[in-house]
């Protein structure tokens, strides 16, 4: 069995290679490339990293404690603020957990609408991530500018449906809040039809670029065994070649009805993680086409679901979905009162950072920046 413990044999091998005066550098919490208020204490030998300790908590805003103090419905707008790029998938994951806890079913139309919104969120998140990653590589401005141009289009859709650009607060237990009107669906269809052209252009800008390849290939490799043991999920896990996508594994919602593939990487490096996301976006466009074509009529809310006075009976439930960053899960313990006894978020970005040190060892400090960028973290979710 391979030794996967922190500071194990694979780590020591790197430590022993270098002998020299070590320099400890604190990157963050204010650092332009740490995607927020994240801090890494890096020990350097020359420019090589021999030790890296992440420091969390600079955005620890007590999400779980607040969740114990508010009602089940009251926590829904707070989930928007976890991973603030992907509020729709956070809403969905929380709704899934509560629906499991209370045994609520969701009408078919709402399931389709949830898929449409989740895949739009995936497009939004992956596009922005590619822009931010290129920003970290030193490709200042242009890719991020193009990414945000597309993001604004998706946000306009979210805004005209849910009322807010980022903090949608759209899903409800047993359905969705608003039924998307026909003209909204037509606009979504136009956006989805045009997205492939944007992806082609975006890839022409980046994927074949020699500088991007030289900068990202072979950097920040992780092995499949270590990734599974460390609980890494999402594109970062699939970049190592492990076929683990909850849309296939759990088959939640109406995902089994759609025909899509799960792109897999081979090396588990930064370039693979970038490529997986680009390929996933193409699959998402395919899912969106199928979902928009097959959207059934009917109610959007389960009439049995109560908005006020919602008291699930005592018990617990863990619900998870495949968010754009990985497995986002909610674990709820109910004691029969209107507030959950324990409200726990399983944050994918936080757990994906477990092996940040293992990925960075032996690389230069400039590579640490893009490795962190390729893991795709949002601090609101890391620290909660």
């Amino acid at each position: 069995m391979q030794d996967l413990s922190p500071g194990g044999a694979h780590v020591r091998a790197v430590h022993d290679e270098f002998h020299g005066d070590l320099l400890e550098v604190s990157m963050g919490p204010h650092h332009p490339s740490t995607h927020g208020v994240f801090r890494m204490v890096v020990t350097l030998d020359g420019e090589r990293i021999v030790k890296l300790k992440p420091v969390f908590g600079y955005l620890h805003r007590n999400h779980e404690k607040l969740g114990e103090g508010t009602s089940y419905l009251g926590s829904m707008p707070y989930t928007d603020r976890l991973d603030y790029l992907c509020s729709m998938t956070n809403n969905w994951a929380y709704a899934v957990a509560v629906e499991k806890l209370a045994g609520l079913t969701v009408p078919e139309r709402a399931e389709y609408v949830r898929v449409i919104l989740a895949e739009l969120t995936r497009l939004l998140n992956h596009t922005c991530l590619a822009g931010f990653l290129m920003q970290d590589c030193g490709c200042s401005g242009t890719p991020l500018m193009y990414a945000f141009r597309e993001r604004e289009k998706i946000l306009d859709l979210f805004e005209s449906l849910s009322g807010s650009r980022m903090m949608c607060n759209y899903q409800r237990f047993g359905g969705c809040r608003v039924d998307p009107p026909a003209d909204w669906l037509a606009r979504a269809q136009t956006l989805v039809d045009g997205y492939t052209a944007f992806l082609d252009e975006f890839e022409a800008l980046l994927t074949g670029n020699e500088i991007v390849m030289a900068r990202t290939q072979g950097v920040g490799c992780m092995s499949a065994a270590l990734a599974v043991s460390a609980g890494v999920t999402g594109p970062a896990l699939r970049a190592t070649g492990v076929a683990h996508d909850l849309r296939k594994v759990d088959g939640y919602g109406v995902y089994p009805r759609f025909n899509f593939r799960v792109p897999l990487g081979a090396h588990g490096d930064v370039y693979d993680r970038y490529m997986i996301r680009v390929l996933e976006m193409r699959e998402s466009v395919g899912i969106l086409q199928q979902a928009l074509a097959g959207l059934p009529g009917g109610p959007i809310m389960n009439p049995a679901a109560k908005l006020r006075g919602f008291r699930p009976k005592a018990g617990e439930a863990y619900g998870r979905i495949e968010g754009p960053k990985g497995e986002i899960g909610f674990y709820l313990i109910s004691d029969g009162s209107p507030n959950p006894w324990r409200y726990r978020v399983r944050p994918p970005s936080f757990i994906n950072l477990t092996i940040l040190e293992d990925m960075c060892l032996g690389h230069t400090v400039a590579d640490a920046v893009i490795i962190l960028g390729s893991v795709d973290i949002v601090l609101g979710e890391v620290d909660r």
Partner: protein
Amino acid sequence: MDQIAPTTVPITDAERDELRRHGILLTGLEELYNWGRSRSVWPLNFGLACCAIEMIAASMAKFDIARFGSEVFRPSPRQADLLIVSGTVTKKMAPQVVRLWNQMPEPKFCIAMGACAISGGPFKQGYNVLKGIDRFIPVDIYIPGCPPRPEALLHGLVQLQEKMRGQTISGPDAPRHLRADLDCDCPIPEFGEHDLEPPQNDILFQPPASPVRTPKA
């Protein structure tokens, strides 16, 4: 400084506009100075939470903060004029924010963007959340919203520019950096065993008498 004391321009605005039409621009030193710095406010490249994404969106193509002369987001506080506190300030982060503020050279300004930066916002009941950044540093503009739209940030920036244009450069209303009697540094709080020490800067943070309500039945 007193010689260039401003306000006594013996010419009306209408006359000035008339002259401008003939190609003659009349201005005062103070006006020129304020015009120049209000049109080139360089913000600190500093994002805290959700609002930071809207701040980035404001600097992107659609909202284009460059039209206000503020697209130059500086990574170093030494080169920045404006601290946009964009998101929740936690107690663990507060000393660092104050330190950044102290590192910025005068004249400097602070915008509290979003509910969290103003008062702790929806997270204010949290044990690790600072209930407003104005407990430690002076804030010039408050932009409510959760998060405020990028347009709201631009509106706040315009308000700040107006405030800068209204400043005199001498006398008792002069800004901090032109006055010798003021210390511009804010004390940095320390991490205590249960809370920050001190929990707020009492010189800066003086809320009015809280309208505490009568308890309900």
